[in-house]
Every structure is written in structure tokens, then in C-alpha cells.
């Protein structure tokens, strides 16, 4: 149901802004061709006359026509502002780009200078520069440009830092692009939007600043007009000739109002959220749901009937849940399984009544204990949340309020739903609930802040919060995904314990079938906002096509090792013996000896730099045709190590030898590793452009053949990466990694961001290409099952050290 926005709809305020700007700029444009009076010609017969047909805005103290002077003043004010923004943005961008990209000492110094400049009020800085350079339009331009450079530099710096974190920058480095090319051709186009907004805001401020300077008599020199200059002259005649002040200020206000309306509403949505919500809710009121299985109500604690939920956008309402029906029995643990975007979390949030503000229920009903809670008022719903139904989220760190102690946060539930308890009783209950979840020393923990606890402890706090008011339903949305594998099992056991002890019904949402299998008795398989099927757990044979695929993929055990890693000219028994390499005749293409990687840590400009070691004494040989697996928990140093293999680490010791040049990379998330502002063709061609001398025609041929090799249609070359599906994108990354005939390819979680149903296809493609092109793989993953299926050599990494597992 996802629709692309077809046409840009204009926001009302944006239109007003554009109209205001046109109102001011049209006379200015005409004035280049024709002007009723000379701006500086004086006429003593019409001194300070009020507006008339002859002089639309009246005349000033020298008998000059105010209308003409206002237009001329607007012109010079805007010329100065445009020059200022252009110069400021130009220099600021370059400074920001360089400091943001390179970082280091230069960045540190420039940021300090920036801090110093920020402590000068901007107008003061301009004043100072003008006072040194002396008055005059040109000097005003220079002064203002100088004032505006730091703000542009700051904006661009943070943009560049942000962009540099993306994998596409790393990817560009890996393909051998020069820094200059990366900065200006790869990154720069991705900062356009931020730059444009900054320029509009800058234009606004520049107009104000020029007016301010001229008002103080330090800007445009008399007799030439500028808006600020005229205002300072007009101020004297505020008594006798108010039209002078009014006309000058009105034009200025209209102009600035126009700019700020445009800059603020640029890209803002055009719909009225409240109005749409009201309409949808009213339409739904007439709807009659045939309230079936009313006998079952006593058994079912929760009923969801024909629920449709959509997000409101400019193109209408995009439904993300398309009519789901399910019920939850008392004391049951129900699983909801599906991939990201399947609507499982939205279902949970909608049941809780805390779905995002832009979403709306378009059809259907939700019943809790037989009571219709679909359109419950906020205050009524609040009595249900936390007391009757409570919820636990994926990320316990961000889900807790950083400014309150964890004890207070659990206590708050009692404040809301059991306020009859005394403070002492409340505290006792909180501590009991904390102990219930297996937390040690709950008395001490009560006064700790979330950041002082570990991930597992935080999730226990969340659980304590969910059970403390005696909720009958707990909805847990991916409660173990952010935790380590061992810890996840413990948390699941806590859920089972709560379920058994209190008879609490639990809805467990997860993408991971194994998690569901551990404690659920029944599961719903969701996809694209519908329930594909209801399945018994331990998993029965799925009835739906999708269910079959999902289970197949999750429990796939086809091993690729024999066919793709253990063929070509070596004895199979070599593979398992770590000491039996003598017989292996294959060429060693990567060899690490006592290899260490460090990060440089800097705490401040004047602090000594120190090195923190990330990888320790790594010894590894990789032979041609190997598929080497590297497993370990996130943060153990896997990625650091392979970046070292690619020669991207600055601080290393020991030996890292590569035969056949640098390796190529395939990243986890192609959306991040492929430049979002470029087309598929451009990305593939860029690699060839930098590394080969092929002609344009040869390059295009090559791209066509490589797209064919990864089973993509060559019409895709014109498409942007953002318009492709997840599978197509990963195929493009793979195409890019093999286009130069690298020997060694590093695959960093190559399939974990993909839908389970296409994982297998990509795996097959990778292994086929491995054989076809005689490639050697290093595969990083936290998924041991996957590694065991495709790798003939496996290393486990823990806290930066490796151990050979196979």
C-alpha cells in the first residue's frame, strides 16, 4: 500500500511566502527598466508630503519620492544580502566540508575560533569589521560575509560529520576515490537540502543585519537609499510624516516575512492532521461491526476485529494495517512474528492507544474484556494503560527517562494507578517488583539513573514497571533484540515466570522465530499489514505460502561449504585440522601476524593523545577460495579488524599482508553504503572511472555484463538506489564489489538487513559468484547458523581477540 508522493503539494504558508516575495521583488525587477522618479533628485516644492497619486508613498524631507527610494533601497539591501550569503556560504561550505571531513587538529582550532566568534554578537562583529575597514557598501558586504562564514561552516561541518559516518563514504574510499572526489562529488550533493535551508535563513538574517548596520549609519552611505538607512532617517519624522516610517518598514517586513515563510515551510506537509483525523473518526462512527463470538468474550481478554490503520500523508491515507482479526486468550502467550514493516509494532501501539500522532484507525474495533476501547477518550484510556495493559519496548536505554532514577520511574506507575498507597508502601512494592525480576540489591538500584545500569538490568526495570500495577496483558515488542544471546534467554524466562505466577496474558512481538518458539503457544504471522496465518507453536506446518517461506528461511540448513569452499585442488581433511596446513597447496592471499589495531582517543585540545587497543595479536591466514567466517557480539572488534584488512586503520602494529590488492566490501545496509543521491549506473561507473582506463563505451558494456551477473535488469542503471527494493540494492552492492575483479571480498553482515525470504536468494548468488569468479570471502556476522552454513573456516572474536573455531 505504500504510495510515492506523486506531486509536491504546496503548503498554505509556503504559498503566502512566495506571494509576499513576488510582491516585493516585482517592482524591484521593473525598476531596472523603468523608474518614475530619479531616486536622488530633490524637489523642494514637495517636502514631506503625504501619499498621493503623484507620489504613492509620499515624499521625504528633501522632497524625494519615497516609493522610488524604497524600491531602490530594497534593491541594494537585497544585493548586499545575496552577495553576503553567496560569499559566506561559499567560504563557509569549504571550511565546514574540510573540517568536518578531516577532523583532527585543524577542526579543533577552527571550532575554537568559531566559539570565540560566537561570543561576539553578530552585529558587533560586523560593526568592528566595518570600523576597521571604514564605511561603504563593499566593506559592509565583506563585514557581513565574515559574520556569516562561521554559521555556514558550522552547519556544513555537522552535515559532513553526519555523512562521513555513512558507509557510502567508506565505500568510496575503498574504491579508491581521492578525498577531493569524495568531498565534492560523493558527499556534497547529499548536503544540498541542509545548505538550501541554511541559505534561506542566512538571507533572512543578512537583510536584517544590513538594515541594522545602515540604521546605525555604518552601511550604505547617503544619499543612496537602503531600507535600514531610510528607517534611520524616517525615525526623525515619525511625528510629522509617519508614512515615511510606515512605508519603509512595511516593505522590509513583507520581504523578511516572505523569506522566513518560504524557508520554514519548504518541504512541510500540506495536510491538516486534526481535520483528517476527525473526518475519518466520524466516518467510522456509522460503521457497524458485527460483534461476533460474544460467547467467547469471557475467554478472550482482547479482541481485535477487522482493524485497519493508516498514516496520514500529503497523498492521502496510506494503510499499514489492512484488516486484521485476532484474539488473545486469558493466560496465553501469543507471538506475533513478521519482518520489519509488517505492521506488528503498529498493531501493538494501536492496541495501547499510543500509535504515532499521524496515524489513524480507519476501520475496525478493539475490545478489551468485551469493552470497546477503540474510541476511548484519552483520560479513560490512561486508566487502562499501565494498569490493565502494559508494554515493554526493544531499546531499554532510550525507553527510560534519562533524568529520573529507575526507582522513581517504576514508582510512577503506582502514583498513577495505586495512589491510595502511602509513599512507604509504594517504595516497598517497587523494591519487591524489582527483586521479582531478578535484580540484586533493589534498594540500592532504586536511586540509580538508567545510564548507570547495564542493558539487561534496564530491561528488567522495564519489566518491573510493566507488572507492578498488576496488568492483565503485557505487550513485549522485540524485548530481547537489543540484548546479548544469553541474556535474551533469561529475559524470556522472566516472562514465562510472570505468565505462570500471575496468569498474565502476554503478546510477544519478534522478528526472530526462535524467540517466539521458546515461550509462545500460538503465533500470528504478519506481512504487509495482514495476518498471513495463525500457527501453533512449536511450529506446525505452515498453511500459507509466506509462512512456508518464512519458516524455511529461518530454519534453512542447506550447507554451501562442500560445494563452494572445499573443492578446487586440496584435501578435504585439511579444513578441520589447524595444524595440518602442509598439504594445502593453495596460495595464501591474506596473512596477519601479531596484528594489533588501535584507536586514537583524544579528550581535548590540550590533553595528551592516547591509544586504545581494539584488536589484539591477530594471527590469520586466508587461502584462495576460502570462505572465512568471523563471529562475535556487536562491539567486539570485528568491523575494526576488517577495516584493518582493507588498509583503513591508521594505528596498527604487526604484519598484514595482502596478495592481489585491496579487498572489496559488501556492507550490511546498502541504503547506507550506496550514495542515495546517485543512480545505479553512476555508482558502478564511478568505480571503473577511478580504477581503470576504460572508455565510456567499454564502461557501459562492463556495467551491463556485471548487472547481468547479479541477475539485475540493465534498465536499472537510470534508477536511484532509494527507488530499489532491498534485494535489488544488495545486488547492486555485490555488483560493485566484483566489477574490478578483486580476489578478496569482505562481507559485513551481507544478508541480515534483508527480508528473510530473499536472504536465501542473495546467499545463493554470492556463493555462485564466488565459484564463478574464484573469489575469497571474509564474512562477518553475529548469526552463527549462517556462518556455519557458508564458511569452511570460522573464527570467534571476543573483546578484540580471535580464536579459531573451525
Amino acid at each position, binding site marked *: 500500500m505504500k504510495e510515492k508522493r506523486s506531486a509536491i503539494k504546496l503548503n498554505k504558508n509556503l504559498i503566502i511566502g512566495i506571494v509576499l516575495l513576488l510582491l516585493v521583488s516585482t517592482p524591484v525587477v521593473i525598476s531596472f527598466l523603468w523608474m518614475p522618479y530619479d531616486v536622488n533628485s530633490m524637489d523642494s516644492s514637495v517636502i514631506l508630503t503625504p501619499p498621493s497619486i503623484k507620489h504613492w508613498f509620499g515624499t521625504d524631507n528633501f522632497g524625494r519620492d519615497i516609493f522610488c527610494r524604497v524600491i531602490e533601497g530594497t534593491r541594494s539591501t537585497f544585493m548586499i544580502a545575496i552577495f553576503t550569503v553567496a560569499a559566506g556560504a561559499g567560504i563557509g561550505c569549504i571550511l565546514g566540508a574540510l573540517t568536518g571531513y578531516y577532523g583532527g587538529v585543524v577542526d579543533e582550532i577552527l571550532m575554537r575560533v568559531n566559539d570565540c566568534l560566537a561570543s561576539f*554578537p553578530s552585529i558587533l562583529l560586523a560593526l568592528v569589521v566595518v570600523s576597521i575597514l571604514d564605511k561603504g557598501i563593499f566593506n559592509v558586504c565583506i563585514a557581513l560575509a565574515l559574520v556569516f562564514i562561521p554559521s555556514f561552516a558550522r552547519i556544513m561541518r555537522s552535515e559532513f560529520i553526519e555523512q562521513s559516518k555513512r558507509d557510502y563514504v567508506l565505500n568510496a574510499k575503498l574504491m579508491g576515490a581521492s578525498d577531493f572526489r569524495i568531498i565534492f562529488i560523493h558527499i556534497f550533493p547529499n548536503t544540498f537540502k541542509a545548505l538550501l535551508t541554511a541559505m534561506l535563513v542566512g538571507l533572512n538574517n543578512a537583510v536584517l543585519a544590513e538594515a541594522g548596520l545602515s540604521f546605525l549609519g555604518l552601511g550604505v552611505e547617503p544619499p543612496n537609499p537602503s531600507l535600514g538607512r531610510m528607517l534611520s532617517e524616517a525615525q526623525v519624522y515619525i511625528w510629522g510624516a509617519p508614512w515615511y516610517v510606515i512605508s519603509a518598514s512595511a516593505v522590509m517586513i513583507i520581504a523578511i516575512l516572505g523569506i522566513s515563510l518560504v524557508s520554514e515551510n519548504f518541504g512541510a506537509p500540506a495536510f491538516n492532521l486534526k481535520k483528517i483525523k476527525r473526518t475519518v473518526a466520524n466516518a467510522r462512527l456509522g460503521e457497524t461491526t458485527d460483534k461476533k463470538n460474544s460467547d467467547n468474550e469471557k475467554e478472550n481478554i482482547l479482541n481485535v476485529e477487522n482493524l485497519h490503520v493508516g498514516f496520514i500523508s500529503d497523498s492521502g491515507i496510506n494503510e499499514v494495517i489492512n484488516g486484521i482479526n485476532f484474539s488473545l486468550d486469558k493466560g496465553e502467550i501469543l507471538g506475533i512474528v513478521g519482518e520489519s514493516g509488517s505492521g506488528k509494532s503498529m498493531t501493538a501501539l494501536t492496541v495501547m492507544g499510543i500509535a504515532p500522532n499521524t496515524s489513524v484507525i480507519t476501520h475496525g474495533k478493539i475490545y478489551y474484556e468485551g469493552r470497546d476501547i477503540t474510541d476511548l477518550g484519552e483520560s479513560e484510556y490512561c486508566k487502562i494503560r499501565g494498569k490493565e495493559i502494559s508494554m515493554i519496548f526493544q531499546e531499554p536505554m532510550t525507553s527510560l527517562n534519562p533524568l529520573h532514577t529507575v526507582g522513581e520511574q517504576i514508582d*510512577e506507575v503506582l502514583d498513577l494507578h495505586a495512589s491510595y498507597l502511602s509513599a512507604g508502601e509504594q517504595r516497598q512494592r517497587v523494591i519487591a517488583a524489582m527483586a521479582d525480576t531478578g535484580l540484586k540489591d533493589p534498594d540500592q538500584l532504586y536511586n540509580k539513573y538508567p545510564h548507570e545500569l547495564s542493558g539487561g538490568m534496564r530491561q528488567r526495570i522495564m519489566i518491573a514497571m510493566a507488572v507492578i500495577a498488576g496488568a492483565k496483558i503485557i505487550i513485549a515488542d522485540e524485548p530481547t533484540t537489543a540484548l546479548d544471546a544469553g541474556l535474551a534467554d533469561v529475559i524470556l524466562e522472566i516472562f514465562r515466570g510472570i505468565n505462570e505466577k500471575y496468569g498474565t496474558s502476554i503478546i510477544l512481538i519478534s522478528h526472530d522465530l526462535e524467540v517466539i518458539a521458546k515461550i509462545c503457544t500460538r503465533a500470528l504471522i504478519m506481512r504487509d499489514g495482514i495476518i498471513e496465518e495463525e500457527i501453533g507453536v512449536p511450529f506446525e506446518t505452515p498453511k500459507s505460502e509466506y509462512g512456508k517461506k518464512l519458516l524455511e528461511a529461518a530454519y534453512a540448513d542447506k550447507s554451501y561449504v562442500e560445494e563452494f569452499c572445499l573443492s578446487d585442488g586440496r584435501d578435504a581433511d585439511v579444513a578441520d585440522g589447524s595444524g595440518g596446513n602442509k598439504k594445502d597447496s593453495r596460495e595464501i592471499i591474506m596473512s596477519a601476524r601479531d596484528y594489533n589495531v588501535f584507536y586514537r582517543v583524544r579528550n581535548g585540545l590540550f590533553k595528551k593523545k592516547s591509544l586504545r587497543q581494539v584488536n589484539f595479536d591477530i594471527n590469520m591466514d586466508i587461502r584462495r577460495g576460502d570462505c572465512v567466517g568471523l563471529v562475535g557480539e556487536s562491539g567486539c572488534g570485528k568491523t575494526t579488524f576488517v577495516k584493518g584488512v582493507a588498509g583503513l586503520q591508521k594505528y596498527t602494529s604487526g604484519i598484514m599482508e595482502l596478495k592481489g590488492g585491496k579487498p572489496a566490501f559488501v556492507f550490511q545496509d546498502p541504503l547506507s553504503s550506496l550514495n542515495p543521491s546517485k543512480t545505479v549506473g553512476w555508482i558502478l561507473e564511478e568505480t571503473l572511472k577511478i580504477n581503470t582506463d576504460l572508455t565510456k563505451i567499454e564502461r557501459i558494456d562492463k556495467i551491463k555484463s556485471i548487472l547481468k551477473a547479479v541477475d539485475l535488469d540493465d534498465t536499472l542503471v537510470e534508477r536511484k538506489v532509494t527507488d530499489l527494493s532491498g534485494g535489488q540494492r544488495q545486488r547492486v552492492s555485490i555488483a560493485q564489489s566484483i566489477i574490478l575483479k578483486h580476489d578478496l571480498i569482505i562481507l559485513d553482515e551481507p544478508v541480515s538487513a534483508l527480508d528473510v525470504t530473499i536472504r536465501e536468494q542473495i546467499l545463493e548468488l554470492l556463493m555462485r559468484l564466488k565459484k564463478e569468479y574464484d573469489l575469497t570471502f571474509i564474512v562477518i556476522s553475529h548469526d552463527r547458523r549462517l556462518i556455519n552454513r557458508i564458511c569452511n573456516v570460522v573464527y570467534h572474536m571476543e573483546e578484540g581477540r580471535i580464536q579459531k573455531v573451525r
Partner: protein
Amino acid sequence: MNWYLKKLISFIITILSVAILSFVMFQVIPGNAAIARLGTEATPEAVEALNKEYGYDKSLPVRFVNWLGGAVRGDFGKSMRYETMTVAELIKGRLPVTLTLAGMSVILIILIAIPLGILTTRDPGGTADRITDGSMVAVMAIPSFVQGILITFVFGIVLKMFVPGGYVDPSKNLSGFIGFMLFPAISVALPKVAMTVRFMKTRVKAELGKDYVRTARAKGNTTRRVMWGHVFKNSLMPVITFVGLIVAEVMAGSIMIEQVFNLPGMGRLLVTSIANRDFNVVQAIVIYIATAVIFVNMIVDILYKIVDPRNIT
């Protein structure tokens, strides 16, 4: 190292950099001040005498150390325009005017902006939000001096609530002085109120999208309780920093508004001194203002650290 000590050192370094920067800008770049003052046709003897009088004949480092030594004690030398007056004397009477104006403005900003911010964020898209939003856009679009002129016109001339261009010395009539400062302070504060409200709005909006807010709602907090108990405190932190940053802009606003209301503050002195190319005075004022701004920001940093438990290590 102690965090507060570090903060203090960084404060001193920043001020020192400002001092060096301003010394270079005003004492080195403009060239020979004596010739600038006496004109190109001055006799060498006169130039030399003047150089000696102002200490221009010494080497740059010596001049810097001398100047800095004086500056620390509040002695910025003589005015280059009013020969009988020292810079300190010129500034002395004017500093309180500007500081009062800036101080009153900051208080007004806090008093007006935060309640307004709460009002608008309580019901996003509601009537109160739309009205404030509209008026804030308008207020930001109008330069502060135009607002000053309009305020003079409406409250001074039409409503006769104060005498435009009038001024009462604080040593003679303190309450009268504060009364006179009120309208200028409003003029300085208004655009910044708008900036602060909008900043608060974006902060609250960002804060509302965070996971802990979802948790707070899942607990059964009403919208109002979510706002007061959770979002408000979290979004107020960056607002504190923002108000610190805005002090610089308040100073800038004061410079402009003193012109509009004819107040004898540092802003007026600055503008006249720039016109007279009286760099000793300009430099002193620049340093005073920068020091004030940096000092306030240091205080804000310290406040921030005290309020936020994550900073306690």
C-alpha cells in the same frame, strides 16, 4: 582534572583569545594610529611625541603585555578622541545602562518565552499554538529597531505611556530609570522571545518522538502529565543552553535599541566611537561585551551540569 577547573581554564583561554584577536584587529591592522589621528601632513616630531604618549613606539609583544596588564585592571588607556578622558571614565557611566537593559531583556525573555512555549506545545496545531506561531514569525521578521520604533510610536506617542527620547539617571531616580528601561527592554527581548519559543517547540517536538515518552504514555500518563513529568524537564536542558547563546544576541539588540530610545549606554558610545575611529574605546567595549557573553555561557554550562544527572561522573 576537576571539571570546574577545566571549565575555568577554558574560560580564561577563550577570553585571552578574544583579547589577542581584538588587539590584532585594533592595534595592528589599522596601522599607525598617530598618523591616522594627526593626518599625513603632521610633523615627525609631533608623530613621535604622540607615539610616545600612547606607547606606540614599543615593540608589539611589549605593547600587548602592557595593554593586557592595563586591561585586566580595567584600564584601557586614553580615548583617542576625547583627550582628557580615559576609556574607563567614558565607559563607567554607560556600562550599568547596557547591563541593566540586557539583564532586564534576558529576564523578560525567560518570563515570556517559557510560558508561551509551554502554551504552544501543550496542544500542537491548536488555536494557542497557531496564534503564537503566527505572531512569532511576524516578530522575527521585523528587525528589532523597527519594533523599537513601532513601540515608541504606539506606547510613547499614541498611548503616551513614556516620553520618547527621555531618560532618568539611575542615581537620581532608580524606579524611574527602571521604568524608562522597560520599553527598550521589551524591544530587545521580543525577537529573542520568538527565537526561544520556536527553539523550545522544536526541542519539545524532538523530545516527544523519543522512546521514553512512549514508555511514559504506556504507563498511563495523561498527555498533560507526560508533558510536565517527562518532556518538559528533558527539553528544558537544551533551552538553558539556548538562552545562554542568546545573551550574545541580546547584547547586539541592546546596541541597536539604545540608538532608537536614545539611551546613554555602551551601544551608543560604540557607534559614536566607530564613527570617530576611536579604537581604544571600541576595543574596550568589544572586550567588555565578549567577556560578559563568555561568562554567562560558562555559568550556563555549570548550571547544565548540575541539573543533568548524566553529567555526574
